[in-house]
C-alpha cells in the first residue's frame, strides 16, 4: 500500500491562508536554527517585531525600507507575469541610483523644479536601459534572461564601486566611499521631520497605475494571456517579442526609479553598498503577493519590517543575516504551498483520494 502524489493541472489555486502558513512555518524553521545557536527564540522574534513595528521610529524605518522593495517588487512582478525571469532588479536599482546621482554631479546648481524631474527621468531611463540589455539578447537570440540579468547585477555593483571609490568620491568625505552630499534642491521632500519621504507617494502612484493597466487594458489582458500560455498567446497573434521588450523596459525602469528615490530621499548621496539586496528581496516580495500590485504593498511592508527587525536583533548578538535566512525559508514554503491546491495524495490500489484542500 503505497502513497503517491498526483498533480491535477486543473486544480484550484491555493487559498490565501497558505501564504500566511508559509510565513509562519518559515519563522518556525528559522526559530529552530536560532534555538540551535542557544538563543531564546521568543525573545529574538519579539525584539525583531518590536524593532520593526513597535516604535514610531521603527515603523517609519520599516516604511522607508518598504519603498525600494515596492519599486523593485512591482518591476519584477510585471516581468514574472509573462514568465520572463528578471532577477536583475538589483542592478537596475543601482544604475538608477547612479544615473540620478550623475545629474547632481554634472548639473550641481539646478533648482529643485529642474533637478528632481531630471534625476527621476535619468534614474528610470538607466534602469530601463539595463532592462533592455536583458531583453534584447532574449528576443534576438533566445538567451536565458536569468543569466544575463544576474550577470548585469555584478556589472552594476562593480560600476558603483568604481565610481564611489574613484572619480565621484567626496574629496571632503574622510575617505568615505560616497559622493558629496546632495543639496536640498536635489532631495525628495520628507514628511514632517521623519526619514519617510515623497518616494512613498511615487511608489503608491506606480502601484495604482500598474493595477489599472494590468486589470483594465488590452495590454494587461495580453500579459495575462501570455502568462497563462505563451504558445497559445503566440498563435493568437500576440507579438511576444514586443511584449517582452516593453515589460523589461518597464520592469527595469521601475527598479531604476527605486534607485533614484533611495539616493534622493534617504541616503542623499550615492554610496558603497547602496542596496542591501533590495533587488533580490523584491523577488520574494513579488512572489508572496502573487504578482498582485496591491498585494505587493502589503508584502513590501512586511519585508521592510523583516530587514529593520534583522538590524535590531544585532543587539542580542545575532547577525542581521537572520532576515536573509527568513526570506529564503518563506520562499521555500511558499512554492511548496502554491502547488498544494493541485496536489492529491492517492493510495495506490484504491480509488480513495485525499486532497489538501477540498475541491468544490
Amino acid at each position, binding site marked *: 500500500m503505497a502513497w503517491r502524489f498526483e498533480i491535477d493541472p486543473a486544480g484550484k489555486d491555493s487559498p490565501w491562508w497558505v501564504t500566511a502558513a508559509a510565513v509562519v512555518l518559515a519563522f518556525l524553521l528559522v526559530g529552530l536554527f536560532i534555538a540551535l545557536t542557544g538563543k531564546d527564540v521568543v525573545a529574538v522574534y519579539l525584539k525583531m517585531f518590536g524593532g520593526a513595528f513597535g516604535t514610531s521610529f521603527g515603523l517609519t524605518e520599516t516604511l522607508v525600507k518598504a519603498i525600494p522593495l515596492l519599486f523593485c517588487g512591482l518591476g519584477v512582478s510585471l516581468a514574472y507575469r509573462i514568465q520572463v525571469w528578471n532577477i536583475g532588479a538589483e542592478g537596475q536599482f543601482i544604475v538608477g541610483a547612479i544615473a540620478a546621482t550623475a545629474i547632481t554631479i554634472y548639473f550641481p546648481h539646478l533648482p529643485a523644479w529642474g533637478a528632481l524631474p531630471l534625476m527621476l527621468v535619468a534614474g528610470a531611463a538607466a534602469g530601463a536601459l539595463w532592462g533592455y540589455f536583458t531583453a534584447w539578447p532574449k528576443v534576438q537570440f533566445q538567451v536565458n534572461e536569468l543569466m544575463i540579468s544576474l550577470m548585469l547585477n*555584478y556589472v552594476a555593483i562593480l560600476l558603483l564601486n568604481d565610481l564611489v571609490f574613484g572619480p565621484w568620491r567626496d574629496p571632503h568625505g574622510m575617505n568615505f566611499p560616497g559622493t558629496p552630499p546632495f543639496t536640498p534642491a536635489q532631495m525628495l521632500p520628507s514628511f514632517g521631520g521623519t526619514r519617510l519621504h515623497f518616494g512613498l507617494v511615487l511608489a503608491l502612484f506606480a502601484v495604482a497605475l500598474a493595477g489599472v493597466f494590468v486589470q483594465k487594458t488590452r495590454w494587461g489582458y495580453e500579459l495575462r494571456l501570455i502568462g497563462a500560455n505563451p504558445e497559445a498567446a503566440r498563435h493568437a497573434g500576440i507579438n511576444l517579442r514586443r511584449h517582452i521588450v516593453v515589460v523589461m523596459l518597464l520592469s527595469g525602469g521601475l527598479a531604476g526609479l527605486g534607485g533614484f528615490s533611495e539616493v534622493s530621499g534617504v541616503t542623499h548621496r550615492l554610496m558603497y553598498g547602496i542596496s542591501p539586496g533590495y533587488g533580490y528581496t523584491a523577488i520574494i516580495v513579488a*512572489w508572496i503577493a502573487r504578482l498582485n500590485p496591491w498585494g505587493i504593498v502589503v508584502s513590501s511592508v512586511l519585508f521592510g519590517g523583516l530587514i529593520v527587525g534583522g538590524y535590531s536583533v544585532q543587539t542580542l548578538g545575532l*547577525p542581521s543575516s537572520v532576515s536573509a535566512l527568513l526570506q529564503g525559508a518563506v520562499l521555500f514554503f511558499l512554492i511548496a504551498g*502554491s502547488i498544494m491546491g493541485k496536489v492529491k495524495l492517492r493510495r495506490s490500489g484504491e480509488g480513495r483520494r485525499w486532497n489538501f484542500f477540498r475541491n468544490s
Partner: protein
Amino acid sequence: MELLSQLLASAMAAGTPLLFATLGGILTERSGIIQLGAEGLMLMGAVTAAATLLATGSLLLAIAAVVAVTGALGALHAFLTVTLRSNQIVSGLALTLFGGGLSAYWGQSITGQPMPVQVPVADLSWLNPIPVLGPLVSHLNLFTWGSLLLVVVLWLYLKHTSWGLHLRAVGDNPATADVMGIPVQFYRYAAVIVGAVLMGWGGASLLLVFSPTWIEGMTAGRGWIAIALIIFARWNPLYALGAAYLFGLLDTVGFRLQLAGSPIPPYFLKMLPYLITIAVLILVGWRTKHKLSASPQALGLPYIREQRF
C-alpha cells in the same frame, strides 16, 4: 615558458571550483531538471567545510559534512520539483537565497579564521622534466585531481554506459523513458542530489584550496557563472573542463594585470568574467539560432505520467 606555466596553474586553481559546480549542473540538467541553486549550494558547501574543519580539524569529516548538507538541500529541490512539480526556477532561486542567508548566519562566528588543515598535494616530482605540463601537474592537490577524474567518469557515464543513456533519455523524453521501464523519478532524484553535492563540493574546494578563509558571499557569483558554463559546454563534461579553466584564467588575469600596473581600472578588470559570460551566452545563442539546441529536450518540464503532451 615560466609565465605560461604560472598562468595555466592559476587558471586551474581558480577553475577547479567552477569545474565541480559545472559538472554537477551538467548531471542535474541531463535529467531534465534546472538547478539554479548553484550559488546557494556552493556557499553552503564552503561554510559547511569551514565550520567542520575548524571544529574537528579533520578533512574527511569536513567532506562528509559537505556531502550530507548539500545532499539534503538537493533532496529538498528534488522533492519540490520532481514530486510536487513546482516551478524549478523559483525553487532554485529559493535555494540560492536560503543558502546565502543560512551560510551568512552560520558563518558569522568563523569569518576570517584561517583553515587549520590544507588539502594534501600529490607529489609527482618525477614529472617535472616535461616542459610546461610537467611543473603544472607535479604538485596538484587532491581536489584538482579529483575534479579531473570526475570529468572522465562523468563523460564515460553519460556517453558509454546504459545507465547514462537512461539518464539522458529521462532528460530528453521522460514519457518514452517511462514506457521503456526506466524509473524516471528515481533518476531525477539521484541526478539532482548528486549534482547538488558536486556544486557544494565546488564551494568547498573554493574555500579549502583557492581562498582558505570563510567570508560571507565569498562565491561572488561563481555559482551563476557555472550555470552559464553548462550552456557554454553544451552539456558535455569534456567541454566543461576547457570552459571552467578558461573562466579560471579570466578570474586571475585581471588580478595579474593589476599587479603589473596596467592602466585599465581594476573594477573593469573585475567585470570581465561577467561581461564575457554575457558575450558567450549571446554568441552561443546566435550560433544555435537556427539549429537544434544541445540542451536536454525536456529541460525544465515537469513529468506527469498521465498527462499527454
